[in-house]
């Protein structure tokens, strides 16, 4: 029989807002309850794996757990996580009114299969993999198109990474992958080696360039040089006839020599080798025999031995535990707000996963499902841990609850992209901005704009550029934790563009509200649009009072209120 924890069942019953009765706790009811739970699994479409994830999390909670998120909270959270934008007021109303007990599961499927899904994943992984590095060698549009079509067709994750490392520019479909290797700062092999280790293997081996990591036994200098040996022959070169950039490899001649700065007299050497993997022998060819294809059109000849191509295959292999675990850890982080291993790039024995068995389980299942990204996100979205409320359970103080216990939902900061999309949607400018084509010679840049030298952006690309410049980190700095800044607050307070968006106009939010005669309805529309929920009575009264005090300037007063909602923590946090 299914072994079911009483707390799990009570929580499930709570979904229907039933009072738990003492009889539930008696053993004689166990069977009935187990049956109920199986029904629930069927009703909610919960994947059996989702249930196992919850068991592993709940086995370690050590205290009361928050109840399930309300429909409104769940709706907003899954829109932001899977589609990168808040829902519209109409979507909020229709979801809240829907009586179908399977509506959450249906919503997850819907959000995993629309256009916004592939855009959201493209944005999330562009930020994660490029870390806002720029560069003109490969246009960002090519990279975007590669990632977006990959996520849209649900290309297996190992294949996506393999293609990024292979960086095959001769194929239109994968041309954009070159961005990873050619982004500003990455043309230095040192940076590239560090970034490949950090982003695909969960290893920050910065220190290992000069010596073994002083405090992390697992991060060796040989790991750094082994990885470097896969990459140090690669560089960008231009095909003269096609005027197109290729990532070419030189001829590797042997192992790399290195020495620790702590013991400069001891020299060591290593060939291409993945951390924890087997060294690849570098073949020695007769002089003149190294190439399989001679140099042509400005591109150097193609060597018979191409270590980066070997890396692409070996690194993304299902048997590379580090790659698989790092991958699931990062998908988990996207959904749950922190990694099972955290920080994400410190995956080693001395910093174990908060739930080691869970990490192992997810890694195994991800491999068994052939690195199916949609499947994995769907499984995570259907867990109770994902669908937990952000409100603390009654009688529990926050100091008792660590983020890695997942006893309440961990709040995530909206990403710069989510912020931009959501503010555009809320204020009602989204459609006009999307429709507006970016002029070829736009020349928009943020510095000139905020110093008043050029007009405000009116198209999607330039508007996103403005938002990501204000809300994003500098190039090369990962965006993992919520880091509010005064500069961002000042932008929301004083940026003319935002305030203009909050003026009445055709199709605009304030224009729509201005026309409503019933102020209660205005309050409902305000809260549903910005916060994806209904206002409480107290909140409605607060709004009505504000209108009353400003009855001579009602439109401006509505606009002020909308501004306050947009700048509230409830809007900024994906809770």
């Amino acid at each position, binding site marked *: 029989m299914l072994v079911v924890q009483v707390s799990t069942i009570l929580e499930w019953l709570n979904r229907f807002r039933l009072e738990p009765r003492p009889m539930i706790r008696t053993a004689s009811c166990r069977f009935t309850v187990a049956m109920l739970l199986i029904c629930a699994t069927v009703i909610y479409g919960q994947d059996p794996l989702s249930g196992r994830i919850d068991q592993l999390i709940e086995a370690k909670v050590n205290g009361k757990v928050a109840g399930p998120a309300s429909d409104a909270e769940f709706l907003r959270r899954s829109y932001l996580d899977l589609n990168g934008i808040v829902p519209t007021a109409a979507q909020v109303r229709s979801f809240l009114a829907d009586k179908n007990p399977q509506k959450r599961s249906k919503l997850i499927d819907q959000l995993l299969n629309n256009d916004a899904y592939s855009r959201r994943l493209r944005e999330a992984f562009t930020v994660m993999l490029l870390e806002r590095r720029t560069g003109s060698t490969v246009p960002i549009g090519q990279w975007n198109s590669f990632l977006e079509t990959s996520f849209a067709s649900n290309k297996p994750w190992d294949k996506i990474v393999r293609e990024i490392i292979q960086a095959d520019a001769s194929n239109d479909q994968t041309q954009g992958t070159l961005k990873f290797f050619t982004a500003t700062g990455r043309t230095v092999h*040192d940076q590239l080696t560090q970034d490949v280790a950090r982003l695909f293997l969960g290893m920050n081996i910065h220190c290992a360039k000069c010596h073994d990591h002083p405090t992390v036994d697992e991060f060796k200098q040989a790991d750094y040089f082994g990885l470097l040996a896969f990459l140090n022959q690669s560089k960008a070169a231009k095909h003269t006839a096609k005027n197109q950039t290729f990532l070419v490899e030189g001829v590797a001649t042997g192992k790399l020599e290195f020495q620790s700065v702590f013991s*400069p007299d001891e020299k060591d050497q290593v060939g291409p080798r993945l951390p924890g993997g087997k060294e690849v022998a570098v073949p020695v060819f007769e002089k003149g025999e190294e190439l399989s294809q001679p140099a042509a059109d400005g591109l150097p000849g193609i060597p018979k031995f191409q270590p980066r191509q070997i890396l692409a295959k070996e690194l993304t292999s299902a048997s590379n535990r580090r790659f698989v675990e790092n991958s699931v850890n990062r998908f988990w982080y996207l959904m749950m707000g922190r990694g099972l291993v955290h920080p994400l790039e410190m995956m080693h024995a001395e910093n174990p996963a908060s739930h080691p068995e869970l990490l192992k389980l997810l890694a195994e299942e991800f491999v068994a499902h052939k690195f199916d990204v949609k499947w994995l996100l769907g499984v995570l979205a259907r867990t109770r841990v994902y669908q937990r409320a952000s409100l603390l359970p009654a009688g529990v103080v926050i100091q008792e609850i660590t983020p890695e216990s997942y006893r309440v939902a961990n709040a995530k900061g909206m990403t710069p992209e989510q912020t931009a999309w959501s503010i555009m949607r809320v204020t009602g400018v989204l459609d006009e901005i999307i429709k507006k084509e970016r002029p070829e010679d736009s020349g928009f840049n943020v510095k000139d704009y905020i110093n008043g030298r050029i007009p405000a952006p009116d198209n999607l690309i330039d508007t996103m550029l403005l938002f990501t410049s204000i809300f994003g980190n500098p190039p090369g700095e990962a965006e993992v934790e919520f880091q509010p800044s005064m*500069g961002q607050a000042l932008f929301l307070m004083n940026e003319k563009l935002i305030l203009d968006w909050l003026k009445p106009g055709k199709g605009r939010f304030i224009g729509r509200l201005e026309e409503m005669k019933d102020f209660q309805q205005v309050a409902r529309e305000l809260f549903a649009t910005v916060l994806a929920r209904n206002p409480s009575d107290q909140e409605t009264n607060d709004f009505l009072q504000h209108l009353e005090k400003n009855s001579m300037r009602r439109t401006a007063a509505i606009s002020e209120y909308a501004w306050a909602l947009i700048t509230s923590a409830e809007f900024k946090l994906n809770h």
Partner: protein
Amino acid sequence: MHPFQCHSPQHELSRRQVLGTFAGLGAGSLLSPLVANEIKSKQKQVLLIWLDGGMSQLESWDPKPGTEFGGPFRSIPTTLPGIHVSELMPHTAQQMQHIAVVRSMCTKDENHSSGVPRILRGDPKNRGVTYPYMGAAMSHLKGKSDNELPNYIWVKPGSGGFIWQHGGFLGAKYGALALGDGKPPVHINRPPGIDDQRDQVRNEIRKRLNKSFQKGRRSAEVEAYDYSFQMAEKLIRRKDLFADFTPKELERYGSHPLGRHILQSKRLIEEGVLFVQCHSYHWDTHADNFNMHLDLVPQIDKPFAALIEDWHQSGLLDNVLVLLMSEFGRTPKINQRLGRDHWPEAWSLAMAGCGLNRGLVLGKTTPNGAWVDDQEYDIGHIFHTVFKAMDIDPSTTEYHNNGQPLPIAHDDYGPIKELLA
């Protein structure tokens, strides 16, 4: 940029100088004139100048010319009889009568990533909680001052923001307000149509919403977000703090980033900010140590000496503690790339002002500079000394973290008695 510099975020600052939140200011964006030399408050304050990556003690405070590890630079006499410093510090050599140097720092961590926070948190014993940075601690212990500015401001190259993590267990609101490249964000200026009254009304609604959202939730994120708005409001009222420096100031302090950042820090202290931390990066000289120090040390020597001289003359040095330090020193042994590596075993720092005894050199290293010979000090001693100078008694003051009493400084150590008047 130097080819051998490390590139980790711990000791290099980002490339965002022109884009984004803290973008360069256009002409006319700063309005008010500045009354820089007016001392607005007699409260005690701290300026911590941090040379991230680790300045070499042998090329600065503790030269050992002509010895095995001494390197190529000579030493020069100072205003203190018998005391020499590196020839790279001619200006500071003339101000030594106002400064106290500790040559016998011996700390534990040789990593930047853990060493920087460990030193800046005072390396208390492991209590299972994250201690606040010195600035956050001071902000908490001294309480709110009567001026409008945040208690803890961090002037740094690269990007700015609100670095709430510095607050440790004290909470987000004790974090640092970081001014990227020492500059305020361009959005400090209000657009037409928003006056003080409208701004206040809309912010009051925002605060009410935050208060009700925070009820029953994890508060750190909401508090940090709310605080970023509070600071924005305060800063809007104080645009005059960021007016251009005069040619004379730049001549005395240097027009390079460190010179400007020390000038900006000086201005913030003079305006009454309780604790200013001023960061310089790129001191991690694993290779080409001597050329790099030849380039770097003058960038701190001149503005540091100018600051001490100016504040001595204006009397401000009586109330302000200036602390100049890194997370560790550099190895006596010169590596094969002519670099010096991380060396926490024996290094130097300097302190001045706020009632500390002046014109002192404490502690001694062995003749080859490798080890502490006498009067070994830990970062815990420095925290005790700083607290004492700031009229906070670590023997009677403690933190309370959810009912758990915690010492404010390492309880195996005490203040450096020779420094206390």
